[in-house]
């Protein structure tokens, strides 16, 4: 962790091919060649991706930056209205994140404490079970709960089925979101927007891990405070996430529902 893997790989990839670095070299390459050179990097493979949020280290500033980075990279529009808002990752207080688990004598600082929330990439996801078109499914090789916006018919069965409120629907065309709130939209010209009438959610940065990059939130969090958000392979006993889960007390949201969330919170 802590190393800016993306920069490292970019430079390494370019130097290997051209013996050069920087923008000039990039321009000489055939489109897609840099990306093509990045496959087979170790980070692209895991049996089951998971995340551990270390609440001792995590704070509001880091969370805000994670949310900002994720939404910027994935062209998530800001509708400025909770009715139609789209969220891939966001903050929620303890009371609501772990609804029903608090007690009356908890201090306000615990109740009001913010947690970082995103799709749990469950082992046994209800959303995938109910989707009539397989537009959302559990990726066998690494456990990411994927979403195919080309396939989605917008029935919103997955939103009803998800017990974590992780899914958002494009109630309107994201490109018609209020301009004053989205001056730079689309914020990432290398990533698509969505169309109206499809569901979207966190994709665990499938497009980034394929290139050996950490998910945007993980990268951002670790730039600010190392190991505040830890990402790794839950199937690998030697992985950083497994080490953390062995040594520290961690909880998950609504484990009693049997969906098997893969996002852990060290408290």
């Amino acid at each position: 962790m802590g190393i800016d893997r993306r920069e490292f790989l970019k430079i390494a990839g370019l130097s290997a091919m051209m013996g050069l670095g920087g923008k000039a070299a990039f321009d000489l390459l055939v489109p897609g060649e840099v990306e093509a050179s990045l496959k087979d990097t170790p980070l692209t493979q895991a049996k089951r991706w998971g995340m551990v949020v270390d609440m001792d280290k995590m704070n509001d500033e880091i969370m805000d930056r994670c949310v900002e980075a994720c939404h910027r990279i994935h062209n998530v529009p800001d509708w400025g209205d909770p009715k139609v808002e789209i969220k891939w990752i966001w903050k929620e207080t303890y009371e609501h994140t772990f609804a029903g688990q608090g007690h009356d004598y908890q201090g306000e600082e615990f109740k009001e404490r913010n947690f970082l929330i995103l799709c749990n990439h469950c082992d046994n996801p209800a959303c995938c079970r109910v989707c009539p078109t397989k537009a959302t499914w559990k990726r066998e090789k690494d456990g990411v709960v994927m979403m195919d916006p080309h396939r989605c018919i917008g029935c919103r069965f997955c939103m009803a089925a998800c017990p974590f409120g992780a899914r958002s629907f494009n109630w309107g065309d994201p490109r018609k979101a209020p301009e004053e709130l989205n001056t730079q939209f689309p914020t990432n010209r290398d990533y698509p927007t969505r169309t109206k009438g499809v569901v979207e959610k966190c994709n665990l940065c499938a497009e980034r891990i394929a290139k050996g990059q950490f998910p945007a939130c993980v990268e951002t969090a670790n730039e600010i405070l190392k190991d505040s958000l830890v990402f790794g392979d839950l199937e690998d006993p030697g992985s950083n996430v497994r080490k953390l889960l062995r040594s520290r007390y961690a909880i998950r949201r609504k484990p009693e529902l049997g969906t098997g969330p893969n996002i852990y919170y060290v408290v």
Partner: protein
Amino acid sequence: MLDKAIKGSQIYWGWIIFLLALIGVGFGFYLYQWFEGLRITGMSRDVSWGFYIGQLTYFVGVAASGVMVVLPCYLHDYKAFGRITILGEFLAVPAIIICLLFVFVDLGNFPRFINMMIHPNLTSILFWDAIVLNVYLFLNILIGWNVLSAERKGIHYQKWIKILIYISIPWAFSIHTVTAFLYAGIPGRHYWLTAILAARFLSSAFCSGPALLILLCLIVRKVTKFDPGKEQIRTLGGIVAYAMIINVFFFLLELFTAFYSQIPGHMHSIVYLFVGLEGHGKLVPLMWIATAFAFIALVILIVPGFRRKEGILTVACISVIISTWIDKGFGLIVGGFIPNSFEKVFEYWPTVPEVFISVGIWATGLFILTVLYKIVTAVKEEVAA
């Protein structure tokens, strides 16, 4: 036989034009939704299904209830219903079409619905719901049309139709069971996560559907020369009575489990619906209206002296329809989403365009119903003459 539908009185044509106008208005609002997206509805990130899916649920019940005239006729050899089975079947046809239209307008990307057929997910209840609904539609059109043609020609319908009729009886139960499974198997939505949901759906279907059929019979008697029959209406009244009692009983079972166990998740939605939660209670008046009408309906239906008077029975039928419509077509869906997965209350209320699109769909159903009933009554008049 379709020619029967184009020979009618001025009132008939006036009614048809009125319905077409409503369909046109609904379609206009649909175009608005088509261009702007579903944000023009009252649905939200938290209440992601609303009026449309509620109507789907309710009208699957109406469609399934056709079996309440078919079953006594064919399984119990109750001959009196032979006269009106066609009315039940031709009520199911527009009801299913209403259901399918409500699914379509609810889809974010309706042209892609074809993905359900090219990339079906066999674990999805919605896929199975589409299958059973379409087969049921097909069965009812086929059976109704063939039986009526045979009646017109004065012959007995063919043998294979009888097989289809026997298939259609369990099929009617299946469509509403599958619809209940849409909700009853979802983790984390306590109001829906109940094994009795399919049974509740069937009981409310078997009171609201026949109640509607009674009203339709009375209208048919009034505007045509065909009389569905006094005995038939009385028997239907009995069916409505039993089904409504069971329906209310099942709901009371839900109340017991939720409130005797005192498990917060099980109580929250019900509390929201009937008294409001955290200061939010948009649905409270509606739910009490439903309760009041259920009470009126039960009093009339239980006392035989009331139930057997057609005038008072009409009041009971209207009460049953209002009560079950609010409970199933509105409260059930919205209540399931409140409170949301974070135990926050985010309310829902349909918007004007949403209601007009729904009116357009109801009008489409009524249009088809009118045409089909026109054909039926014209054939019945012709045969009688």
